[in-house]
């Protein structure tokens, strides 16, 4: 069995539909392929995400954040690489309300939902996390706290001199 990011779309949507975490009353999730890789945002407020092909988004009446991830295979183990965690400006009140209702922050919920893919996948699935060092807005404490809380192993990456084309 060998498979990876581009072709994984039908497989991931199948897993997304099989996850049995109870649905939220006041929020909705959306799994989609990235359609914007440049700066700026679309009409929903979703910003470009060149580091991840897949996005698990959360909406609370409006777009409220996402995790971006990729998929590949190492031997027979499926690897989910979480390479982007992002909220929206001025959403603190929304996030506080979410936590009050559900007992956790929305991004923790997104990570847990993604981890539940591993429970319905037919083969072992590993989750790895990364804080994009090129992102000026990425707060390392946010990523560190989130990944640590959800048991996601953080990876270090090598920044290459010519790796600046976005």
């Amino acid at each position, binding site marked *: 069995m060998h*498979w*990876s990011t581009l072709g994984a779309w039908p497989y991931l949507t199948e897993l997304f539909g099989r996850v049995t975490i109870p649905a939220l009353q006041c929020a909705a999730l959306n799994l989609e392929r*990235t359609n914007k890789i440049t700066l700026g945002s679309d009409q929903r407020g979703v910003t470009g995400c060149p580091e991840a*092909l897949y996005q698990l988004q959360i909406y609370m009446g409006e777009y409220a954040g996402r995790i971006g991830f990729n998929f590949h295979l190492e031997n027979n183990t499926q690897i989910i690489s979480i390479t982007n965690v992002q909220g929206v400006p001025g959403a603190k009140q929304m996030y506080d309300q979410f936590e009050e209702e559900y007992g956790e922050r929305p991004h923790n919920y997104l990570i847990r939902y993604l981890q539940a893919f591993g429970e319905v996948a037919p083969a072992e699935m590993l989750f*790895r996390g990364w804080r994009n060092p090129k992102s000026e807005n990425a707060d390392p404490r946010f990523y560190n706290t989130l990944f640590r809380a959800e048991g996601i192993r953080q990876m270090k990456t090598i920044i290459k001199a010519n790796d600046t084309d976005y």
Partner: protein
Amino acid sequence: MSRENRLQQILTEEGIPDTHFGSQLELWEDLSNTSEKLFGYPYLKQDDLRWNLAAEYQRVFDIVGFSGKQFECSLRSTYLSPMQSSREEYGKYTKNERTLRHFSRALVNPWRLAVPN
């Protein structure tokens, strides 16, 4: 290990099937557009490993479908792995080892995997 063998090993590790085109020119013809799009040349050398990538690109596209932007995103994506991959060439893809692995990770398809009922 020769360089060609090393490159073949990377493709094998990443699950890119060996098309064994040999002298089947009609198969090259079918993939010439894809090869030109990916590598800038409609016809690579007969033993060029990148025929395998062109074949896989076409196969995944025929099955899953994806936009040019999504393909671009898959090449810009970060795949966290001890076996590092990175996009080190823009536009035209050489046989650079890390780029070859990165390219492979963007392409190999999952549809052989059956999700249990």
